[in-house]
Structure formats: structure tokens, C-alpha cells
């Protein structure tokens, strides 16, 4: 294929060529970055919480006024929940993943440290909590029944003993004691006395995004058993597929167990997860829509301009055909022309994509655009260009040689 005639034609249509190149470049830059943003959102929404989410339901309950029997009522609540058919395990907990509300505490390696080593989310629950959540214990053990302290005791005036033991996550262990065995080590968090690490779970996410991505799994379980006045969050693990019926029964049981009980929230962990990531999901969809719209508009631009050129050069095409050019050669001519324009646009677009990414890195704290996105974007735009030009190019190829002999 001879490129010279194409280039010299393009040179005579500088403005139009420049416009197409610029349009392709901008689309390429925006699409590369948008795809990267989408993948970031998908990754975020894909993060495991460390819990057996597909088997869990949560009911949040409260009473009216003060309850002097909160501890006893909590125990009977739990007993009733555990008796529901289809329930594997039930626990009370002070906070739940995807719930938003969280308890956090600074964690230190020595008692007189002035700046905290990390801030961890604190889970308080009964001894069965790790089992209810479905946490994966990778080292050590869970809490023994004799280590548990009731919230009413731990929160009473004059009580200031620190919890003696804790279960932490692997992420937290790695941050506190990199490369060492965390079991038996002491950390300082609640109270002045140290807390000994007795167990490590693989993952347990915090209920919100405090601390950013790095701190997502900085969670710690302490052996303090809250009563229902501390948020009133009951977590129930069910046999697979029985969540809905158990949830109904659990709400019923809790509502009846006490003079005035109000159900504040109820639902499966899946529902909570969907609500938690709604913003990310709608952002991802918005990005997808923009990408599609960009592709459509760019394609329309290419079709429009190519049609115009074909129309303008009808006579020129007729002459070429009369001089012996085949239909395929005419077709190839327009396809090559489009390929050249697209290539120029893509080269410019990659530079712009990189520039846009720099801006996003500075303004939106986004990571660097992986190089993989550039060839993907390039391929998409090349294909788009070829598809859009196909129609006008075929119309050009259909121009009969006789056109050359006619004066307009």
C-alpha cells in the first residue's frame, strides 16, 4: 500500500484530520483512565471481610429507657436465638462490618509510647463470636470462657483493668511485629496494662474506611462481652440457604423478649454489603456509561467525516477506478487513512492518558496507571476506527469508474 498519496491528501485537509486525531486522543485518554478507575472500584467491592458473609444475618435491637437487667436479657436473647432451627451460632457484637459505626483504639508496642503504632478497630463480643463470624484462625486460640468479662463490669465506675488477652488479624500482626510470631507478644491499647496476643485470624475487615486501604484489616477482638444496650447488634450464623427464615424468626424472638423492644435494623450481610458499596457501584456504572458514550460519539465523528470525504472525492475515486484501481484498493485506501489517523490519535492519547493519570494521582490519590491499560485502549480505538470507516469506505469502493467521465 502506497502511503504517500494518503499523506498528501491528509495534508490538504489539515483541520479535519487534526480534529479527528484530537477526538480519538481525548477518547483514548479518558477511556484508559476510566477503565482503570472502574477496575479500582471493582477491586474494592471485591475485598473479602473475613466473615462467612453468605451465612450471616444481623438484627439490631434496642429497648426504651434504662434496663437494669441488660446482661441477663442479653443472655436470654442469645439463648433464644441459638434455639431457632437452622441457626449454627449466634453472638452479640459491638460493631458489624459494613455497618459504618465503629469502635477504634490506638495500639502501642510499649506503655510509654507517645505516637501510636496503628489504630485498630475493636470488636467486642461473646466467646462464640469468632465462630459466629466464621473467622479463619491461623495461629493460637480463641478466648477461653474464663477470660470473658461482662460489659456491665468492664464499664462500671472504678474498673480500669485492661483486657488481658486479644485476637488480632495477620495484617495487624505484620505491622506490629514484622517477621515475628505474634502469639504471646504484648500490645498496649485499652488501659495502661498490656494485652497479650493469644490468637491470629486471617482477615477481619473494619466497619468503615477509617485509616484508608492499608488499615482495612487492622481489627482486634477483645474478651469483653457487651450487653444489648451497647448498640444491640446480634449476629446470627445460619445453615446455607436458610437466612431469610432465620432472620424472620430472630426478629420475632427478639421483639417478644422484653416489655418494649424496637428493631432498629435487620438484614443479611449481603444486603449490608450491597448498601455499603452502593456509591462505588454507581460510580463504576457511571464510568461505564461515559466510556460507551465516548466510543459512540467518536464513532459518529469518524463516520460523519469519512462520509464527507468520500462524497468530496467521488470524482477522484472515479478517476482512480477508471485508471485501473480495484474496489479492494479503494477500500484499503480509506481503511489505511483511518488507521493512520487513529494511530496518531492513539499516540497523542497515550501521552494525554499519562498526563491525566498524573493529575488524578495528585488530586484523587489514585495509584499510577498500569502500562497494560495503554495497549488495551489503543486496541479498542483502532477497532472502533476500522469499524466506523467500513461503511463510508465501502460506499467509496462502490463508486463506478464511469463517474470520471461525467462532469458534475
Amino acid at each position: 500500500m502506497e502511503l504517500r498519496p494518503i499523506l498528501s491528501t491528509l495534508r490538504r485537509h489539515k483541520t479535519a484530520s487534526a480534529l479527528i486525531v484530537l477526538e480519538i486522543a481525548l477518547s483514548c485518554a479518558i477511556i484508559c483512565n476510566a477503565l482503570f478507575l472502574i477496575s479500582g472500584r471493582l477491586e474494592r467491592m471485591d475485598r473479602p471481610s473475613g466473615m462467612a458473609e453468605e451465612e450471616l444475618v444481623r438484627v439490631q435491637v434496642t429497648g426504651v429507657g434504662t434496663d437494669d437487667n441488660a446482661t441477663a436479657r442479653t443472655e436470654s436473647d442469645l439463648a433464644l436465638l441459638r434455639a431457632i432451627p437452622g441457626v449454627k451460632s449466634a453472638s452479640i457484637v459491638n460493631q458489624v462490618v459494613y455497618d459504618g459505626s465503629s469502635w477504634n483504639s490506638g495500639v502501642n508496642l510499649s506503655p510509654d509510647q507517645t505516637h501510636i503504632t496503628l489504630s485498630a478497630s475493636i470488636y467486642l463480643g461473646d466467646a462464640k463470636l469468632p465462630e459466629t463470624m466464621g473467622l479463619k484462625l491461623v495461629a493460637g486460640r480463641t478466648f477461653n470462657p474464663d477470660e470473658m468479662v461482662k460489659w456491665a463490669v468492664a464499664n462500671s465506675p472504678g474498673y480500669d483493668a485492661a483486657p488481658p488477652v486479644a485476637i488480632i488479624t495477620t495484617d495487624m500482626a505484620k505491622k506490629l511485629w514484622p517477621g515475628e510470631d505474634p502469639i504471646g507478644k504484648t500490645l498496649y491499647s485499652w488501659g495502661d496494662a498490656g494485652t497479650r496476643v493469644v490468637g491470629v485470624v486471617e482477615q477481619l475487615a473494619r466497619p468503615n474506611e477509617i485509616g484508608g486501604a492499608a488499615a482495612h484489616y487492622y481489627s482486634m477482638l477483645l474478651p469483653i462481652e457487651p450487653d444489648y444496650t451497647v448498640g444491640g447488634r446480634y449476629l446470627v450464623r445460619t445453615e446455607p440457604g436458610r437466612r431469610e427464615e432465620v432472620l424472620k424468626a430472630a426478629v420475632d424472638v427478639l421483639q417478644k423478649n422484653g416489655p418494649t423492644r424496637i428493631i432498629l435494623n435487620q438484614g443479611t450481610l449481603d444486603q449490608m454489603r450491597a448498601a455499603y458499596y452502593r456509591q462505588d457501584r454507581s460510580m463504576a456504572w457511571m464510568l461505564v456509561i461515559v466510556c460507551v458514550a465516548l466510543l459512540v460519539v467518536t464513532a459518529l465523528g469518524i463516520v460523519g467525516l469519512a462520509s464527507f470525504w468520500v462524497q468530496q472525492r467521488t470524482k477522484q475515486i472515479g478517476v482512480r477506478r477508471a485508471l485501473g484501481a480495484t474496489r479492494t484498493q479503494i477500500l484499503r485506501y480509506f481503511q489505511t487513512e483511518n488507521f493512520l489517523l487513529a494511530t496518531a490519535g492513539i499516540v497523542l492519547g497515550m501521552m494525554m492518558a499519562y498526563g491525566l493519570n498524573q493529575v488524578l494521582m495528585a488530586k484523587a490519590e489514585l495509584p499510577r496507571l498500569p502500562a497494560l491499560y495503554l495497549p488495551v485502549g489503543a486496541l479498542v480505538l483502532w477497532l472502533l476506527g476500522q469499524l466506523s470507516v467500513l461503511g463510508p469506505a465501502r460506499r467509496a469502493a462502490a463508486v463506478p469508474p464511469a463517474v470520471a467521465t461525467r462532469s458534475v
Partner: protein
Amino acid sequence: MFAYYFDLALRSFRRNKVLTALMVLAIALGIGASMTTLTVFHVLSGDPIPTKSDRLFYPQLDPATMNGYTPGEEPEEQMTRYDAEELLRQKRAMRQAMMTGGSVAVVPEKAGLTPFYVDARYTSADFFPMFETPFLFGGGWSAAEDARHDRVVVLSKELNERVFAGGNSVGRSIRLGDAEFRVVGVLDAWRPVPKFYDLTSQNFGVPEQAFLPFSTSRDLRMERNGSMNCWANIGGDDPEGNTGVNAPCAWIQYWVELESPAQAKEYLQYLRDYSEQQRASGRFERPTNVRLRNVMEWLAFQEVVPRDVRMQVWLAFGFLLVCLLNTVGLLLAKFLRRANEIGVRRALGASRRAIFAQCLVEAGTVGLAGGVLGLGLAWLGLWALRQQSSGVADILHLDLPMLATTFVLSVVASMLAGLVPAWQACQLAPAMQLKSQ
């Protein structure tokens, strides 16, 4: 002349229906996307209390211990109960109020009706005049009632409708948790966007449904909501725990209203003096580090407008730019295709300026059509956003300024897009065009 050009433009559209439709569609898509995102941004970044947002200030102190101290860091975002009560007592601003969020159980009088929880705000007397809350019946309470720990409550319109069927309930009593409260006022519909006075929970949430004196709420140990930051162990013997007067915890929002923005300097100095005093008495450990931000400064500092929303605006405008480039290309094709016609007009005496004007009118008309369609798309986009049950969804509407912006934006954008093609069209030499006939 304009009418004639407009007519010419319409004729040209009729001749090239597909090309015209493509241009209008491209502009409409760009405008629709831009206006949808811009409206969201406009609503979220609005001034919640325009009459006095430059006179309302949010003071901050730094009461934490030296533990974790890093010079240059921002002070605590909220106040301790001790400082809030002390500043409130000293009354150095024109108006001032301390407040925190909470929740209360409303127990209906009629037996058998189930109690329900509503969000509440525990605050002090100046809250109502300071934030210009509209009243349907009655009014707020006074400082005397704060001091007496009176059990008085101001209800939202919604709660009044739920409990008292919307009637004038002033003077009637309502059971909140364990105690009877006397209704002193009922608010009319009130929805500051964002909910600037407390940004610790939902930035765009609706105001609480029950407002009662902070002092009373502490007597009754009512449940509090919102964030709390404690920097030391809570003294063991205070039965109130982390909400006690001397607890080392920041959990109170505190607002002041000054007579003029210029008084901010004076008030800031007062805060500094107060902080120094507390340091001298040993209560504060850190060097004096106070802030005094007005409403809009506080909203900006708290980054109330989500980053996603800003990014969406940029994205939509990037898309609009591509749509415009597209329009430039299509207009160019359109004008140059009519080279003959332009040649004839030129030969018959039309000046370059006339050709230029004609082309711009045509471009502007495309823009206007695109704007109308774009408005429809923006309305559709906002409708789609309203269907999501997120906190802000219900307040997303196109207002008059945004409507005007839509048309100005689309016409200006399309005329800008028409500049290059119009320039090229008026540069055509008439003789060349006529010769080829």
C-alpha cells in the same frame, strides 16, 4: 438579517437530516452529562444558610494530651463537654450553642401502639435563633430553661404529624424514653443542605426530629450518637463515663454567631486567651492551637462534597469536550459541502463577515436544539439518580440558575465549535467554487 440566517439554517438542517441529527445528539449527550453532574455538584456544594454563613463560626480547641502530639496538626474537630459548657457560660459571642446528636424512643400515649426511635439533638437555647429555624407553632426554649434542666422539646414537622396528627401541640406532653416532656415548639419543614451544624454522621442527612436541652439530656442519660474521640483513659469514678464533664473526650459541636465577620479576629483572640488560661491551669497540655472557621470554610475543610462528585463533573466535561470536537468536525464537513452555495452568495455580494455570521447562527441553532435535548437528558439523569435511595437523592433538582446555565453552555459551546468551520467557510474564494460548476 438574523431571522434570515436562522431560516437558512433551518433549510440546511432539512437538507442534511442525518448529519444535523448527529450533531444535535452529540451536543445533547455532552450537555446532558455535564448538567447532570454539575447539578449534583451545585446542590452538594451549596450554602446551607446564605443569610449568615459568613457570621456563623465553628471554634476548635486542642485539649488533648501531649501523647501523639505533632506540631502543626489540626486541633480536635469537636469540643469537650467541659470547654463547650464553659464557653457557653462565658457568652462572648452574640449567640452560641453547644450540641450533640442522639436518639430517643418516642412512646405513644395510647396503649398498644409500639414505641419508635427518632434522631434527636441535645442543644442549648440559641440553636433556634442562630440557625433561623422556621417554626410552625411556638418557638424554642430560653437559657433559663437550659439552666433549670427543663424537660421541654421542640418537634420536627414530621414527628408532630406522626404523634399529634399535625395539630398545634405546643403545651402538650410527649413521652421520650423514661420521661415526660412538654412541647414548646414545632418546626416547619427545615432542610439545610448540607447538614452543616453536625458533619460527624450523614453530611446530607435530614435534621433531627426532636430537639431538647443538652442539660436535660445528661440528667436523663439519653443515648448519644456521632463520633467521639478520647485521648486518655476515662477516670474510673465518674458514673457518666465518657460523657462526663471532665472526660478527656471530644464529642460536642459548638457554634457561635458574631455580629459581623470582622469580629472573628476578636473572637479568635478570645479563644487563644481561653486556651492559654486552660494551659496555665494545667488542663491543656498542648501549645495553643485554635481555629475559627465560618460555615463555608468549615464545609470546605471537612471536604463535604465527595471526591467522586468532583471527578464526575470533570469526567462529564471531558466528555462534552469530545462531543464538541465531534461537532466541530461535522460542522466543517457541512459548511464545506456547501462551498458552491457559499461561492454564489459571495459572488452576489455577501461579505465574508456575512458568511461568518450565517455559519455561526447555524452553529448556535444546533446548540440550542442540543441544549433542549440535553436538558431532557439531564432531567432524565437526575431522575435516575433520585431513584437511588442514598441520602442526597431527594434534593437533586434542576433549579432556575442551572436551567439558564444549560442553555448558555450549549449555545456558547456550539458557537465556539462553529468558529473554526465558519472561519474556513468564509475563507473560500468565490471564483474557485464557481469555476468548478
